[in-house]
């Protein structure tokens, strides 16, 4: 058996995808023009699949901070925090994130994936119990493969399902760690966090919340679902990323646990990889200031979410269960999702295509992520385009709805 034979099934599915003429998994942005536009295939394309929720990738103050840092400290750190030392900016960033959450400790990672992978797999070990939501991100599943703890899944967003699993553990020894996400990345739905926290308290389980998609978006000051659900003090660990709302790359974990810092010499994804370069640290520090100083970006984001979600729902599209910065559009099967995606790209709109096995319950989706920098006109244009394609492809049934046009000509 050859090395690649085990991937034969996937290879076949991938070949199907490529026959559409464009490969959604290897799309090339020839030039990125702004948070909402890029040149793809020689044409200006509207971007609605970038996780760039506040549009900060082109924020002048963040860009200037990054450029200044490169001039002052160079392009990279060329080593890990443990072996090669921290720069002052790494430490300052950690202090600022800890202060943002009102927590005592923060560790910064080179990616959000590594933060989840390292923290989760290290917090629990032999004899402990790790309980994860069935729809958890790949980084959480990969952490499960690395830990010696026993891992049990509970039904997505279902506190009663978690309760049953914690109850069954009875008086077995070992710590219990429950992992939840603020906003789930495929359908944009939030965890019923208060219900989960109540269950965790009942059984003395630790709570870790991944706010990757909810940092900035949720909570009065943008701290995420922990803040909007009013349970910040009940969450033992909060993990997040710099690669979405903060417009760069990197991950973090905050906690009030007095022994938290021991993780710096036990978490392998922190110890054995190069630390974030100065430019990234500088732009993230500035982006955090922008999030705190400009709450209107959060309001604009949610206004845009309402425009896109309600607009698509009114046309009859089947969407994720609630408003969220990620809007998942259900399509009947994998090939329809890919065909629809391709038609959208031809019409000058880029979204993400999400198909099994990356999606929960085998669903096929067009995954749209909304940006505060989108204009209402851009989103209304997108709704028109999707409605047209939906009718052409037979996804939207029935006769076209008459549109009311105000005023006289």
């Amino acid at each position, binding site marked *: 058996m050859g090395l690649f034979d085990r991937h034969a099934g996937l290879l076949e599915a991938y070949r199907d995808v490529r026959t559409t003429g464009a490969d959604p998994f290897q799309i090339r942005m020839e030039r990125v023009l702004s948070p909402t536009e890029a040149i793809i295939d020689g044409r200006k394309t509207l971007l609605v699949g970038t996780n760039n929720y506040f549009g900060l990738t082109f924020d002048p103050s963040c860009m200037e901070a990054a450029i200044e840092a490169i001039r002052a400290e160079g392009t990279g750190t060329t080593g890990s925090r443990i072996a090669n030392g921290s720069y002052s900016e790494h430490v300052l960033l950690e202090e600022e994130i800890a202060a943002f959450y009102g927590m005592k400790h923060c560790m910064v990672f080179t990616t959000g994936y590594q933060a989840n992978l390292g923290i989760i797999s290290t917090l629990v070990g032999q004899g402990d119990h790790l309980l994860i939501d*069935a729809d958890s991100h790949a980084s959480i599943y990969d952490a499960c493969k690395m830990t010696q703890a026993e891992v*049990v*899944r509970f039904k997505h967003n279902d506190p*009663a399902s978690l309760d*049953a699993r914690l109850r069954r553990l009875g008086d077995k020894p070992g710590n219990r760690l429950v992992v939840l996400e603020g906003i789930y990345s495929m359908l944009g739905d939030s965890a019923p966090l208060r219900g989960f926290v109540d269950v965790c308290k009942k059984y003395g389980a630790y709570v870790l919340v991944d706010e990757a998609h909810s940092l900035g978006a949720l909570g009065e000051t943008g701290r995420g679902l922990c803040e909007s659900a009013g349970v910040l003090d009940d969450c033992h660990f909060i993990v997040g990323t710099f690669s979405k709302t903060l417009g760069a790359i990197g991950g973090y974990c905050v906690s009030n646990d007095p022994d938290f810092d021991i993780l710096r010499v036990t978490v392998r994804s922190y110890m054995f990889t190069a630390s974030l370069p100065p430019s990234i640290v500088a732009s993230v520090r500035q982006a955090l200031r922008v999030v705190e100083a400009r709450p209107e970006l959060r309001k604009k984001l949610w206004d845009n979410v309402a425009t896109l979600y309600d607009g698509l729902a009114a046309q009859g599209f089947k969407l994720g269960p609630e408003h969220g910065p990620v809007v998942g559009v259900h399509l009947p099967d994998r090939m329809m999702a890919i065909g629809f995606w391709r038609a959208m790209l031809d019409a000058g709109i880029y979204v993400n295509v999400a198909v099994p096995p990356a999606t929960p319950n085998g669903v096929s989706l067009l995954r749209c992520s909304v940006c505060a920098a989108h204009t209402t006109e851009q989103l209304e244009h997108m709704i028109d385009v999707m409605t047209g394609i939906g009718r052409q492809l037979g996804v939207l049934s029935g006769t076209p709805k008459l549109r009311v046009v105000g005023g006289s000509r």
Partner: protein
Amino acid sequence: MPDPGTGEPLLRTAHKLIVENDDLVVSLDLPLETSRADVMREICHHLAPYQAGEKPIVGETVISKDLTIDSLAVMDMVMELEDRFDVSIPMNVVAEIHTVDQLADTILDLRARR
């Protein structure tokens, strides 16, 4: 430990099964012993949609090879079986299960150890 719904102590004997589904918690009275046949019947019920051709699903059926089910659907089926039989099967244990027989044995073993 009290039942979250009624506040009564949970019965851990085999004739009383607590089924939790969404917000609804109901108690079912089951036969005193969960027989191997019960477990096999339930597993086959879940696997039926993934039957490949006419080949029947039997104890020796290798779940990942002889059926059209993918690994994610296997894990989702395990969650359903966990709630049906009120046991938890850790993911590392699931990874070691290959046949329908092994899955049934695991469930019966976990029930016996409760």
